[in-house]
């Protein structure tokens, strides 16, 4: 059975005495753009919620763009909401599979890897995500001529 994360987090925060439930994003229409070229000619990047710069306090983290060579061996994930009872984050590949992406590039399964990956903060404010973080990542992807951006939220 699929885990009902919306229900679980709602009950969890109610148990903590929060009187207003979080309202998750909900849209009636979903955007869609066909790829328009073969996979083996496409440029790929990744968008992660794993934190690169842990010294930036959580409340003021914004979307940022980093060369893949700057990806940390282990992203800072302690402040994020993942299942800390069941699993661990000691294997970067389980949330940021750059080595596998590199192998797929070498095998010509994809065209190539974009010069930069992207951090998006798990921001409480949907306004900040929509008005600032998402447009920042879109701009950077357009600059890098990205064809496929894979968002991998932890």
């Amino acid at each position, binding site marked *: 059975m699929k885990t009902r994360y919306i229900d679980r987090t709602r009950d969890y925060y109610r148990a*903590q005495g929060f009187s207003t439930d979080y309202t*998750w*994003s909900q849209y009636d229409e*979903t955007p869609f753009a066909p790829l328009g070229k073969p996979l083996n000619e496409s440029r790929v990047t990744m968008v992660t919620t794993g934190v690169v710069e842990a010294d930036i306090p959580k409340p003021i983290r914004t979307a940022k763009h980093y060369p893949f060579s700057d990806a940390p061996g282990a992203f800072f994930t302690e402040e*994020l909401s*993942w299942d800390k009872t069941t699993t661990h984050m000691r294997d970067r590949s*389980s949330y940021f599979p750059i080595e596998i992406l590199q192998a*797929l590039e070498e095998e010509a399964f994809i065209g190539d890897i974009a010069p930069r990956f992207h951090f998006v903060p798990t921001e409480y404010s949907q306004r900040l995500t929509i008005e600032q973080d998402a447009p920042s990542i879109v701009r950077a992807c357009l600059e890098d001529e990205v064809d496929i951006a894979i968002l991998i939220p932890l």
Partner: protein
Amino acid sequence: MVIGAALDILARCGTPRTVYNDMPLGNPLGKPFDRSMHRETLRLALTLAVDAKSPGTVVETSFVWDAFDTDESWKRNFCFIDPNTPEKYLAMGEENRQRRLDNKAKGLFRE
């Protein structure tokens, strides 16, 4: 394109293309150190980038977190609430609210 483990959240939002992996939050590509699982998940996602014909396409992997955990007991862990210790959660909430106030007082907020 999203690779994720919280399908209800993704479905509510409405993501264009989704690969859903029924894993604990934190390891959307698959079990830690299981490279073949990570590789298959990523290949599914990249293939979906080409194959999806309409918005909201979801592909579910066949992977399971623990084949021996037949009642999927791990799914009770995230945001588990122990009914015997309500004060513990209220204290967590109080700490959370105080931290938000402190951050605001220190100018640690976005506009």
